[in-house]
C-alpha cells in the first residue's frame, strides 16, 4: 500500500503499486482534471506537481511517490503556489487561451511551475518550459501571451 498526499489529503492507495499516478488520480480518486494524452511523458496533458515540481503523472508509479505531496489542477489554487496559479488562470481567461481545453490543465500546471521559478520568463524560457505540453488546437501563441501577462500581474501584486 502506498501512502501519499493529494491536494493536502492523505491517500492510502491499495491497488497495484505500478499504477501510474495519473490513473490513481482519475480512476481511484475521481480527480479527472488531470488528463491522459500519450502515456509516455510525451505530451504533458497529465502534468501535476509532486513536492512543487512538475511531473508527468502518466509515467510516475504510485510506488515512487510514497510520502510525497501531489497537487493537481483541482487543488493548485489552494496551495502556497495559489497566487501564481490564480494569476495564471486569470490570464488564461483574459487572453481567451483555451480551445478544446483538454491539454489546458497540463499547460496551466507547467506554466505555474515556470513562474514559480522564473518571475520574468523570456520567449526562450517559455519554449524550454512549455514545449513538453502539446496542444493540437494550437493555442501556443495565446499560451505565450498569457504567461507574460500573468508574470506582469504577479509583479504588480
Amino acid at each position: 500500500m502506498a501512502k501519499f498526499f493529494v491536494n493536502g489529503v492523505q491517500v492510502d492507495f491499495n491497488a497495484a503499486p505500478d499504477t501510474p499516478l495519473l490513473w490513481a488520480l482519475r480512476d481511484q480518486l475521481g480527480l479527472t482534471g488531470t488528463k491522459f494524452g500519450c502515456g509516455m511523458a510525451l505530451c504533458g496533458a497529465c502534468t501535476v506537481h509532486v513536492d512543487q515540481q512538475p511531473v508527468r503523472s502518466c509515467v510516475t508509479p504510485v510506488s515512487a511517490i510514497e510520502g510525497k505531496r501531489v497537487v493537481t489542477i483541482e487543488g493548485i489554487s489552494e496551495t502556497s503556489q495559489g497566487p501564481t496559479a490564480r494569476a495564471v488562470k486569470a490570464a488564461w481567461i483574459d487572453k481567451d487561451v483555451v480551445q478544446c481545453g483538454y491539454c489546458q490543465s497540463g499547460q496551466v500546471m507547467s506554466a505555474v511551475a515556470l513562474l514559480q521559478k522564473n518571475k520574468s520568463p523570456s520567449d526562450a524560457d517559455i519554449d524550454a518550459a512549455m514545449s513538453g505540453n502539446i496542444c493540437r488546437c494550437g493555442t501556443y501563441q495565446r499560451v505565450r501571451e498569457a504567461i507574460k501577462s500573468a508574470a506582469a500581474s504577479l509583479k504588480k501584486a
Partner: protein
Amino acid sequence: MNVKSISRRRFLESSAALAGGLVISFWLPGGGGRNAFAQAPQPPKISPNAFLRIGKDGSITVVVKHLEFGQGVTTSLPMILCEELECDWAKVRYELAPAGAEYVHTAFGIQLTGGSSSVWNSYDQLRTVGAQARAMLVQAAANQWKAKPADLRAEKGFVIGPGGKRLSYGQLAEAAGKLPVPDKVVLKDPKAFTIIGQPTRRIDSLEKVEGNAKFGLDVQRKNLHTAVVARPPVFGAVVKKLDAEKVKSVPGVTHVVELRDGVAVVGRNFWAAKKGRDALEIEWDLGPNAKLSTADLKAQFAETAKTPGKAAKKADDAEAMKGAAKTILAEYSVPFLAHAPMEPLNCTVEVQADGAEIWVGSQMQGVDQAAAAKMLGLKPEQVKLNTMLAGGGFGRRANPVSDYVVEACEVAKKVKVPVKVVWTREDDIRGGYYRPMYAHRVETGLDAQGKIVAWSHTIVGPSIMAGTPFEAMMVKDGLDPTSTEGVSDTPYDLPNMSVTLHTVNPGVPVLWWRSVGNSHTAFVMETMIDELAAAANQDPVAYRRALLGKHPNVTRVLDLAASKAGWGSPLAKGRARGIAVHESFGSICAQVAEVSLDGNEIRVHKVTAAFDCGLVVNPLTVEAQLQSAIAFGLSGALFGEITFKEGRVEQSNFHDYRVLRMNEMPRVEVFLVPGGERPTGVGEPGTPPVAPAVANALFALTGKRARSLPLATQKWA
C-alpha cells in the same frame, strides 16, 4: 425559411420537462440550396426539444446542437441567439445537445459538426429562436401591464414599459412559456448588432482552466468498467488463436471478450484493463494486407497517375496540350495522416432495462446513435446519446461507420456491465481512418510567351465516402468530390483544364481530416502555380493576380496578406517568404510564411494570414481558429506521415508521429476582410494554405521544389 411551431400541448410538455420557464422549441426540416445530403432520409419524428431555456432566476441556457471541440461554438452560437433575445450576456450558459431530430444541420439534414458549417447553418435558425423568445417575453409583459407590445422594448434581460416600468426575463419566463410561439418575427437590422461582431471571450474558459470541464474520458458512472481493446495489427487481420490464460492473473481484470475486430479486456479501471491487454497472447491471421508497404503504394499510385482516370473536369479543347510550345510535368505525393486529437478516443455505454445510454464526444450524434442502436439490437429512440465535450477531433469523431461507438456497444452488450472503452495513443495512431494518401500528376502546357494554354491533372487515392452510408448521396459517377475539391473548382483561370481521378482501395480505412480534400489539393495547386510563376520570371503575387481576374474576392484576400506581410520588402539574411491562397468552405484564406533553415531544420517564424469568412460573429474565435488551423496544417506539412511496412503502421505515439510544439509555433498575425453579409466557414479554411506557403518560401530560400509532404524529412540544406 420554414419555421414550424409545435403544438401548445407539446410545448408545455417540453417546458415542464425542462423546468423553469420559457422553452422555445422548433423544427427546421432539412433542405435548401447548400444541401449536400439532399437525399438523406428525414428523421421520422419531431420530438419536443429546445434551444433555449430561461430560468426564473433570469439564467439563460442556450442548447448548442454542435459538438464543442475547440472551435468555440459554445460561445458563438449563444451569441447569435442572444443578439436577438436582448438578454444580459453575463447570465448566458451553454449546454450540449444530445442526439435529437430537432438538432439536425439546417442544410445537411443530419446532426453533424463538420464542413466548417456550425455558425453559418445556425445563423438564421438561432436568430429566429432569439427573436421568437423576445417577442413572447414582450407579449407576457404586455399582458401583465395591459399594454400594447409595440409600446414596450426589450433590453439586457428586461422588458421595459411606459413610464420606465421593468420586468426581468426571469419574472416573465413562466408566463411567456405559456404563450404560442410566433410564426413570424422581425429580425434585427445588422447595423444594430451589439453582440455579433464583438470580440467576445469564451464562456467555457473557467471550467477548462479549473479542470472541471467534463470530456468523454471523464465520464463517471456507478459500477463503470474500463475496456482496452487489442485491435488487429494489420487492417483486416482476424484472430486465429486467443490465449487469455495470463490475463487471469492480472488483478482487477473482469472480462476478456472476443469482438468482431479484436479482443477486449475489461477491468475495474484503466490500468487493470491495460495490463490485461498487454498479457493477451493472440495469433493473428494477417489477411490480404499483410504485405502492405508505403513504398509499394507510392510506386503504384505514381504509375497509375500516368494514365487518365475518370473525368471530373473536361478541357474545352482536348488537343490544346499538343499545341503547347513547352510543358512542365510535376508528380506529387502526400501521405496518410492521423488526426491525433489530444483526447484519445473513448466511448461510454450503459445498457439499461429499456434501452441504453451513451456518452461520447461525437461529431455525428444521430449517425452514431443509429449505429449504436443497430449493434445493441434497439431502436434509435431507445438509445440516449449524451454529447460530451471533446478534446479535439479534426474529423476523426465524424465517422460515417461510427467505428469506435459501435465497438464500445459491442463490448457493453457482451459484458453486460457499464463500460468505457478507452483508446491509448498507440491505438489512436495505429487505428486507421486516416487522411488518405494521394498522388497527383500535373502537366501544364505553355505557349511561346509562357502563358498557360492547357492543364492536365490526374489524382490517385482512396475515396473517403466509398463503402459508407454517404456513398449513395455523395459519390456521383464514381467520383468522390472530396478527392478533387480544390483542384476542379480552382478560382484560377486555367484554360483547357482537365481533371481526372483514379479511386483506389489499398485496404486502409480513411476519413476526412481538417479541410478534407483541400488538405492536399491546395499544396499541389499552390506550389505548381508558384513554379509556373518562377518559370515565367514573374513575382508570385503578380502572377496569381493575373490568373484571378474573374475572382476579385480572392485577389482582395491575396493582396491583403501580401501587403500586411510586407511582400517584396527586404528580409533578414537567411530568411525568405512564400505565399499561398486557397478558397474552401465558402471562405478565402491567403497566407505568407516567413522561413529560414537551421542546418536542415525548417524554422517557420511568422505566418501572416488574411481571411474572408463573410460576416464575423466572434473575431476572437476567428483569430483563434486561424492560429489553430495553421498550427494543425503545419504539423502535417512539416512532420505528419503514417507509413506502412509489412502491413503494420510504423508510427505509434508523439515521438514518431510528431506534431507542432510551442518552440515550433510561428507568430501568426490575422487580418479579417470586413463587411461580409453572412457567415461562411471558419474552422478549416486556414489549414490548406500553410503547407504550400511554407514550401514556396523554401523554394525562395533554396531553389528546391517540394513535391511531397512532409517537408522536415526532405533535404534542404
